[in-house]
């Protein structure tokens, strides 16, 4: 009986694992089966390197380079803003924060993670857009605004994962460093943090995934212009916002091209994850 129960549970776990793999496979099959033909119809280089996106023109143009660059710029901006703040916050929570303050700050960070992206978008539209417009110029809907908003949105991911990684470093590392004459700061930043770099790097990669895949918040603050980036204070459209904006009314080749845009996004995230794996392997 015990043997049967164990086998049954093993089967349940196996099916659960298969379901996850199957989901990924189905997404891959759907994306590539619908997206690759569109790329060949438009022409791979015309699609990837084309600077003009005008699906309603006769004949239409389907160049997604502006959106690729838009995604890259906004993600990079979000990392520049979010990563230093996130890692330093994680260090503070793990190594500096008094217990009483930690009981308040940790739930606050967790709460940030639970806010829906449309609420972030509304916050950006009402608060950040006028702030950027009044203090930096432009019309407020810009790469800078979207980067600030995404920088805030990736904070909980970076803080939570980085803090866990820092706490996972054996206490002996810190104690040995202090015993050798290092100050608290030096021990934390020169010994503990480098020891946790694998986890910290993982948090950054998760942050990149969140930033590059975000659509709802970005659509509300980035201006949504399908043109080449023209400066930090100018608007932009990303790969995700392009799909969200146009999938509702797209038909035929236009729809296929939007799915192909999804393929490009998928490949982007795949490259990021593979790069992360390679860097981790090299460090070992």
């Amino acid at each position, binding site marked *: 009986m015990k043997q049967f129960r164990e086998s049954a549970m093993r089967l349940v776990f196996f099916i659960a694992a298969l379901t996850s793999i199957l989901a990924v496979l189905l997404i891959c099959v759907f994306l590539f089966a619908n997206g690759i033909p569109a790329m060949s119809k438009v022409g791979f280089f015309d699609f990837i390197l084309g600077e003009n996106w005008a699906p309603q023109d006769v004949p239409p143009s389907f160049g997604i380079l502006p959106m690729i660059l838009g995604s890259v710029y906004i993600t990079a901006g979000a990392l520049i803003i979010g990563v230093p703040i996130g890692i330093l916050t994680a260090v503070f929570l793990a190594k500096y924060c008094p217990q009483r303050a930690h009981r*308040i700050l940790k739930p606050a960070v967790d709460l940030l993670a639970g806010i829906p992206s449309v609420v972030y978008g509304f916050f950006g539209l009402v608060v950040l857009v006028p702030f950027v*417009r009044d203090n930096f110029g432009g*019309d407020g809907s810009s790469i800078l605004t979207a980067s600030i908003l995404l920088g805030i949105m990736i904070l909980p991911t970076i803080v939570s994962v980085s803090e866990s990684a820092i706490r996972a470093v054996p206490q002996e590392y810190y104690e040995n460093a202090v015993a050798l004459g290092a100050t608290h700061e030096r021990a934390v930043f020169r010994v503990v943090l480098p020891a946790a770099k694998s986890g910290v790097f993982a948090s950054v990669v998760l942050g990149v995934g969140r930033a590059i895949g975000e659509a709802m918040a970005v659509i509300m603050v980035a201006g949504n*212009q399908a*043109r080449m980036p023209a400066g930090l204070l100018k608007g932009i459209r990303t790969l995700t916002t392009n799909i969200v904006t146009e999938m509702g009314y797209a038909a035929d080749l236009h729809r296929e091209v939007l799915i192909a845009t999804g393929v490009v996004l998928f490949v982007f995230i795949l490259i990021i994850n593979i790069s992360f794996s390679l860097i981790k392997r090299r460090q070992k």
Partner: protein
Amino acid sequence: MKRILACVLAVVMVFALAACGAPAAEDSSSPSASAGSSSSPSASASAPASDFDSTREISVVSREDGSGTRGAFIELFGIEEKGEDGTKTDKTTKEAAIANRTDVMLTNIAGNEYAIGYVSLGSLNETVKALKIDGAEATAENVKNGTYKVSRPFNIATKGEPTGLAKDFINFILSKEGQEVVSGDYIAVNDNAEAFKSDNSTGKIVIAGSSSVSPVMEKLVEAYKAINTGAEIEIQTNDSTAGMTAAMDGTCDIGMASRELKDSELAELTPTQIAIDGIAVIVNNANPLEELDNAAVKSIYTGEATTWDQIIK
């Protein structure tokens, strides 16, 4: 502790958002100058608002490609160029920010002193200011008498001939009672329509499409449900092309479009015009501008005019 913190943060966020909503500047009410000729861009303004900097860039806001309002707007103002070989090119400036719904457009313009956009006349509210075009004020009355020329039809479309609840509802829209609802903010297509007699069809229908048509559609649904209580009608708001695509796919029973149907759509759908609507060109209430001519609107939307001092002479 977590609950208390969550409540405190929620209250703080609400107050922060409330505090950040800048009050709209008072609407200028000075009479505008006469309309300029349509050959060269001209505009008229009331006494300049004290803090309106006309050297600032114009923040052009447009709608997404699938929008019927955009389709009609670029056609009426000559922003869409048609070649003799059948080519069509939308010359809207690439600098134009894209609002994907009517309410988003209104929010964008209301929140930015230097912005210009366009919305359905029936969706217009006091948060923004509608400009006169070629001397004519943007009102339903002026659309009806032909002095305000920036208008387009509101169409609904079904795949084949409608039946059951869909047919009964369309009959209501075209009836005396339905057209009275329409004439509140729009122009009715039939002033001499007959009174409605429902066949009391039951069931559920889905209506999808234009965010310009949905406000009047909501009123029509409400009025119809008062007559036929057994009807269940769901409205999904997106844009005209999405509505037509949904009707063709069969994912909705009735599609809404704030433009004429395209040839590809007419091949599969049966259209019915339910109203006529104007398109209002809108600016922020703090903008001293009162009037533009057709050429000025075109020059702004094609990117020829980039700062307000090129428009406010």
